């Protein structure tokens, strides 16, 4: 299972990337997309919404299941990936490229490293 070294992770299978422009980019992991199966709908939040760590930032739906995407950190929704409106399957194709939201004014939080996340998956399987 692909777990890029450069990203941070949560136990709920989200990833975070901290970009040079000061924004934090959030998506779901390869493991999460695989567990969900074919993704057919993504509900995105409103830009400008302030969100706490652990709050639902978006909702991802497969044919069979509904899954909340929890924000790994507190922040303000600065941008959403509108491509997912028409092509939610981009998450299945490449979960680390298909980001879901970007946060500005975020607050640091405890996150998992790639190695820690890999260990977590090992334990769950």
């Amino acid at each position: 299972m692909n777990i890029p070294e450069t990203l941070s992770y949560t136990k709920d299978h989200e990833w975070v990337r901290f970009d040079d422009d000061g924004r934090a980019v959030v998506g779901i992991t390869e493991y999460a997309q695989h567990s969900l199966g074919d993704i057919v709908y993504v509900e995105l939040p409103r830009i400008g919404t302030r969100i706490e760590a652990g709050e639902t930032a978006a909702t991802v739906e497969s044919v069979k299941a509904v899954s909340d995407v929890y924000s790994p950190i507190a922040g303000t929704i600065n941008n959403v990936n509108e491509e997912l409106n028409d092509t939610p399957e981009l998450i299945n194709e490449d979960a680390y490229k298909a980001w879901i939201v970007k946060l500005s004014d975020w607050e640091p939080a405890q996150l998992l490293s790639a190695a820690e996340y890999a260990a977590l998956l090992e334990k769950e399987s």
Partner: protein
Amino acid sequence: MEARKTPLYERHVAAGGRIVAFAGYLLPVQYEGVLAEHAAVRASVGLFDVSHMGEVMIEGPRAAEFVERLITNTLDGMRDGQVRYSPMCYESGGVVDDLLIYRLGPERYLLVVNASNRDKDYAFMRENNPMGASLSDISDSIAQLAVQGPRSAAVLERLTGAELLPERYYTFREDVPVAGIRCLVSRTGYTGEDGFELYCPAQRGAELWDALLAAGADEGIRPCGLGARDTLRLEAGMPLYGHELGPEITPLMAGLTHFVRFDKPDFIGRDALLAQKAAGPQRRRAGIVLTDRGIAREGARIFSGEREVGVVTSGTQSPTLRQAVALSLVEPPLHKPGAAVKVEVRGRMLEARTVRLPFYKRNTQPSE
């Protein structure tokens, strides 16, 4: 209760099936993906393990009389080799189960019931057998495979004589050798496509599965899981017990009026259903499509203006239509096609409208 394995369990695991417990059985929800499996059945052919379904054999001089009292449909005019669909009701008019009736002979009927209801159905049948018909639950001795899709006949013709296959929808043939395995072959299914359901001895199920996958390779046959089975039947507007049918839902509410034969003198639930027919059911089945973005799932509440008028009983994103569809129970006359309603999804009210069922209908029907 520990979930049981079907005779195909090892095949599912070997093929990478994602195994879940369903109706007391370990079955694959999907192999490679629900969308690909769904598409295979619509475009060509798919193979399903439906060995979890229950089979009850009814025999004896009063077998027909017994079955006739159990079902809301009728055996009238039925010949050997024909299949009929019927609800089976409680005295209250609520549904015990929906089933297929195979007429093997004037004194021999095979009833195919839902896995989740098997024990309950069998008990109900035994309690309602003053005719002394012989009943036996033969489910564990049978493997059932469904070959579904427009190319399903082409696949079967590679394993048996084309002339041995049942020609018409809702007919069957017994003792058909398929890859040398004696099967009851029925032209029925739960997908809205042409297709067959094959019943064979449990111990030969895996062998039949392998033969069908090999014979269908050129047609792109895919093993399909419960996920695709559900999206296919939903697009075809077919009810699923526990969702569109149940003890609190009558056939009249569920849009199965056509299968309730008030013209026959007696069946269990007749009085209650007659009374409901006269008064008009409080809720009726409706097909719904969402016009707003989003997916309505089971349990979502339906509104007309500010008023709650019903509930979604099954809902998904239709892979064929690429649109969110749902089956529901709503207050009449909102069940009629074209009514504007709202569905509550995660606190938001999504615009929707009722439509004629099924959501999907195949272009060419095998003759009925």
